Each structure stands twice: as C-alpha cells, then as structure tokens.
C-alpha cells in the first residue's frame, strides 16, 4: 500500500514538473511530423513516410500485442506453467522470415520509384549554383551576373550571442532568417549545383523535399519544382556539422510567380552591372527576413 502511494506521488510530481516546464504561450505541439511540403516530390516523400510509419505501427501492434499478452497472462504469479517442450519450429521460423520479406518488398517498390524520380535532374529551366561556406550560402544564378550572399540575419545574429540579453522569442524567425533570400519562380524546374568552399555542409529545405551535401571538390545536383499555387517563404538549415557556426547558417527560399521572378532578376542584373566590378548586388546592406 505504502509503495503504491509512493509511486503515485512520484508520478504526480513527475507530471507537474513536465507540465510546469511548458510555457503555455509558446506551445507549438502540432509540429511533430514532416511537412507535406510544396513540391510534388516532398508530398510523395510525406506519403512514403506515412506509409512506412503505419506499417511499423501495424507490425508493432501485432508483435507488442503478443509480448504484452505473455507479460499479462503467462506470469508465474498467475500460476502459469512453462511449456518447456516449446523450443523450436521450422515452420514458424520460415513464416516469420518470409512475411517480413514480403512487407519489405512492398515498401521498397514505391521507395525505389520515388528515388529514381528524385534523382532525375534533367530538363531544368533554371540552374543555381549553391556554394556553402563557413557560415552561410552563396547563390549564383547561372547565365546571369546575379550572385547572392545569404547569411544569418543581423537580428538573429545579435540575439544568438552568449549573454546577449535579447529575448529570442521576440526576434522574427530566430535562426531561420537570412540577410538575403534565395528567390525562385514557382512552377519551373530548378536545378541546384551544390558545392562548398571549405568544409562539408548540407543544404536542406524540408518543404521542398531537398537535402544535398555541399562537399569541397564535388558538385552535387538537386532539383525541385514548386507547385504553381505555392508562392511563399520556405525555411531550412544546414544539416551537416560544419564548425562553430553550424546552427547559424539557415536557408530561406522565397518562391514567387515566374513574372515576378523575371522582374526581380532583371532588377538584380541591372544593379550588378552598375555596381563596380567584383561587387554584386547582394553586398549592399539590407535585412530581408
């Protein structure tokens, strides 16, 4: 009795501690799954992910169900007598080898199809060179003079300092905002040519379903088509440990209509031409989050 009460007390304390730690105002409990994203690929990845998840849940229900049944009904304290003769059965061994193989084949087929499609980088309408560096990204629009240096936004940078005294909840898109965004058109196939000038980085935007490593000496390709209705801002981060600033090299992609993109690119090109040689439009100070 005493033990039971003690256990209950511990449980209550536990729950209270867990609940107390959660700032009610900032609660964002909904974010527990992959985003569906805004490209055909990201949506299909989401579907594959959910399929794999539910298959695992299904297997879990069966396997854990059997185990829990044993834990409840085959206990010594219930007077269960062990069936010591039950030590081997070729039939069940074959069965529980074959059934998982079938399930795996069922998962592998859609995964392989999608994989082949994702790795098709042909027929792109726009190529952008992505250079990772410690710590930020440089974007060059191939065939133009437009080059963008995209680093952590100044407000996030200031707030991220040790003992900055700045409440990060008040910083817009803390650690997920940049000085200059990557601007792309929706509805067009965009190919990224990704490399790095120093250490290995990785370019990831979950909503686009794209993650590719930026490796010095290699040019990796990745491509995406944002659904035409999905103009907006999509945020991601570097996902390969790259030193002190690893947490501080976000990626922000602004998807605009093709017409707006053309106009933007023209403006940037003109600005690039009028600027002195070597300096590109992006070096002018400015904060776009």
């Amino acid at each position, binding site marked *: 009795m005493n033990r039971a009460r003690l256990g209950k007390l511990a449980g209550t304390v536990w729950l209270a501690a867990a609940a107390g730690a959660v700032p009610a105002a900032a609660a964002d409990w909904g974010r527990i799954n992959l985003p569906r994203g805004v490209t055909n690929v990201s949506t299909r990845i989401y579907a594959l992910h959910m399929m794999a998840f539910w298959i695992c849940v299904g297997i879990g229900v069966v396997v854990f169900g059997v185990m829990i049944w044993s834990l409840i009904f085959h206990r010594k304290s219930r007077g269960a007598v062990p069936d010591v003769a039950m030590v081997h059965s070729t039939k069940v*061994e074959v069965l529980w*080898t074959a059934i998982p193989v079938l399930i795996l084949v069922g998962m592998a087929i859609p995964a392989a199809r999608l994989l082949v499609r994702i*790795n098709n980088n042909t027929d792109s309408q726009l190529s952008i060179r992505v250079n990772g560096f410690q710590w930020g990204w440089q974007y060059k629009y191939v065939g133009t003079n437009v080059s963008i240096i995209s680093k952590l936004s100044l407000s996030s940078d200031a707030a991220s300092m040790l003992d900055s005294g700045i409440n990060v909840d008040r910083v817009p898109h803390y650690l997920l905002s940049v000085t200059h965004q990557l601007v792309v058109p929706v509805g067009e196939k965009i190919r990224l040519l990704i490399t790095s000038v120093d250490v290995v980085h990785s370019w990831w935007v979950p909503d686009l379903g794209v*993650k590719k490593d930026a*490796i010095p000496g290699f040019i990796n390709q990745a491509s995406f088509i944002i659904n035409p209705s999905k103009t907006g801002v999509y945020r991601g981060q570097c996902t390969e*440990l790259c030193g002190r600033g690893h947490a501080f090299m976000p990626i922000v992609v602004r998807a605009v209509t093709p017409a707006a993109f053309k106009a933007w690119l023209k403006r940037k090109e003109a600005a690039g031409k009028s600027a002195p040689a070597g300096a590109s439009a992006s070096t002018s100070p400015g904060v776009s989050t």
Partner: protein
Amino acid sequence: MDQPYESTAHADHEHKPHGWRRWVFATNHKDIGTMYLIFAGVMFFLGGAAAMAIRAQLFKSGMELFDPGMYNSLVTMHALLMIFGAVMPAWVGLANWMIPMQIGAPDMALPRLNNLSFWILPFAGTLLLSSFFVPGGAPAGGWTMYPPLMEQFGASFPMVVFAIHLLGISSILGAINVVVTILNLRAPGMTLLRMPLFVWAWLITAYLLIAVMPVLAGAVTMLLTDHFFGTSFFNAAGGGSPVMFMHIFWFFGHPEVYILILPAFGVISEIIPTFSRKPLFGYEAMVYATASIAFLSFIVWGHHMFTVGMPVAAQLFFMLSTMLIAVPTGVKVFNWAATMWRGSLSFEPPMLFAVAFLFLFTIGGFSGLMLALVPSDYQYHGTYFVVAHFHYVLVPGAVFAIIGAIYYWLPKWSGRMYDMRLAKWHFWLSVISVNVLFFPQHFLGLAGMPRRISDYAPQFTDWNMVSSIGGFVFGASQLLFPYIIWRCIRSGKPAEARPWEGARGLEWELPSPAPYHSWQTPPSEAVLAHGAEH
C-alpha cells in the same frame, strides 16, 4: 545430489597477488573483467556529464550556457566517451567475466594479452579527456571526424587520433583473446552449437572488431598524414576526396554499431529464458540470425551517406541491403517473444531491463526501417529523428542490456544479492525517463530540427524542454546503479549458486561467488547436461 564443482576447497584458488599488484599485474579474467567494468562505469558517468551539459544547453532556445565551439566539443566527446569508453569496454568486461565460466574454462586463453588490452584503456581515455585542456579545446568535429572540418581543431586533433589508435589496439587484442578462448578452451562436450548465446554473440562480435578496427585506424592515420605530412587522401585541392573518408569511416562505422549491440542480443537471449523458465525458442535460428546481421553489417554503410550524391544504383543497393537487415533482426525479436510465450514469467530486475529492451529496441528498429527508405531519409538525414533512432537502439538497447547483464550476474560475481526494491526503482525511473528523453526527439527531427546544433529556433523549444527534463531524470537515476552495486558487495545477503530459479548454463553450476579460477577441471558431461537441463 550431483556435486558439479569439486575443487572449491583447494587453497590454490586464493593464490593471488595482493594489494596494487593484483590489479596492475592482473592476469585473472575476473579481476580484469572487474577493471573493465569499473573503467566503463567511470566513462559512462563522464560521457553522461557531457550529455547533461548538452541537454542543459538545449533546454531552451537562445544561447544560454556554452559557446558553440564548446558545445560541439561536448557533443563529440559525449559520443567518443560513450562508444569507445563506456559501451565497448563494458562488453569486454562482461566477456572476460562470463565467457570462461560459460564454456567451462579456467580463464581467458591469453591472460597477459588481456592485461595489456585493459591497461591501454586508462591511458587512451586520459589522452582523449586531456584534449579539453589544450589550446583550442577538445575536438569538435563530431565522432564521425569528417575532413576537412576535423583538421581545423589544432592541438587536440592528433591527440584524438592517437587515442583512437590506442583504443583500437585494445579492442583488437581483446577480440583476439575472445576468439582464441572460445575456439580453444571450451570444455569437452561444449560443442559450438551448445554454447550459450552470449558466447556466440561475442564470438561474432570479436570477428567484427578484428575486421573493422584497423579500417578506422587507417582512416584516422590518413587524416593525420593529410594534416601534418602534406598528403591529400581527403583533400580535394590535392586530388583527394572528403567523400572517400566518409566511405572508409562508415565501412568501419556500421559494423561498429553491431559491435555495440550484438553482445546485447546475447545477454537478452540469456535473461529472457531464465525468467520465462523456458529454454530459448529457436536457438539455431538465433545463431544464424546473429551471423547474418554481422555479414550484412559490412554491406550497408552507404545508408549513412544517402545525401552525399551517390549514383542512384548505389543508393538503391544500400537501401535494399539495409532493409534486409530487418529480416534477421525481426527473427530475433520474434524468437524472444516466442520464448516468453507460454512461459512462467517473473519480473526480477534483469528481466525488467530485458523486457524494456525488447520493446524499446524494436521501436529503434522501426525508425531504422523508416530511415532505410532513401527518399524519406533525404528528409530525416542529419536531424533529431536520427538522434532519436540511434539513442533508442543504444540506450534502452545496449545500455539497458549491460545494466540487465550486471543485475543478472552480480550475485554470481559477488556471492551476494542486491536490494531488489531499489533495483526496481532504478528500472522504473530509467525506463520512464529514457522515453521522455528520446521519444520527443522523433518529433523534433520530423519538424525540422537538425542534429548537432548548439541553438535552435523557438518553435522547437517545447519538446526540447521535455527531452531535457527526461534527460536530467535519467542521468540522476543512474546514480542509483553504483550505489546498489556497492551496497550489494558490502552487505548484501549471501547468494545461492543458482539465485534465479530458471537459470541455465555452466556459470550457475559454480558456487557463488565464483572461484578465482573458474573451472580448474573441465566440467563433465553430466555437469554440462545439468547446466543445460536444469
């Protein structure tokens, strides 16, 4: 009554050096096993301290405690200490203690080698830890040590390389000893297919160690020469390739993962039959499954690097080979479940940890299966989803199995029982907090939080707080463990030779505590049969 062990009264059992000589010049498998376990325990708490610091830093968004460089050092050292300092030596310690007793041998086959392989460890550990105090601080490139990043860490970089060389030598020597002992010192009648599963698992693990530790040594040596002697193995500017390092590292790294978990499979296969009072279901299938997993572990390394830009065919190959591992792993889980089925279960502390292993390791297996699907992996790779996955297989997997093994065999080692109630508290606190700690990390990863970041966007704060609270409770609960062991050794009630009603195997035919030289005369066929049939 059968009197299986006849030589307990022989005075020569107590013929051993005393004081510090007993430990420094140790050649006895039990003394060396004890030292391994103590070393592993110390490293577990140091690595755990690093983990607590990491969870404190991540308690909320906004840089709070450490500068990012220090944070990266903590992440790196946490991994190195836990993998090379805690889990691997703990398994070697258990191998030392149990293999001779389980196969009917007096000791390990190569006692002086055994002494060397242990005594390398404290020096390697000291070298590794002292890198915190050199200019530039401890290495901060992660335990994967990818170049060119790894070469940016001044004086600590060669220290880590040499520490890894030493740890690798120690592991190889330990593994050779295990192989030689198992293949040569088995009692007459102890055929390979009568060996306990723990011995089988260790035999296979030892081959994995011998195969891959030299590969790691080669990789870090090439890093070293790149940095100090102008070679360009991994330097793109000199014609080398950073990606080659990743391939070599993971060719070591994936079997390494199984080095950490296969002995756990062995332990679970000992504990579950004992407390189900029923022999292991599908013994031979278990052996073949373990061997298959070991073989497959050599051909799946590419799944750690799906985002580096491999050809589609290679990605497909690594996806399929990785998915294939689910088959023998599933066979093991099903056989354990079948062992409990229609058994007569009781839940002493070793069984509690084994059952938790069964459930939680399987959850880690599920996330592993999800990670194998390349398109999904593009989203999961490098996020907290991966962190959750490998901590599920390594903490409630490998670590719970080690704790369970110690609770299982401690009465045999010490001749005393421990406080069951306290050990159950240890279990319940651990099993609840470990889930509070790691389950939310699945959510964080899926929601977009990269791993190894020293600060994060505010939207990730809630689950990070929950995870940190779980972490602190888990860390604090582990302090119970040395206390329980200490109390057991000091003042536990005497243990019987077979303290667990359903225990089978030769070790339980020895008195408790087990004699200094386990089996001075090989156990007879009758003893063997008694051990197996009991």
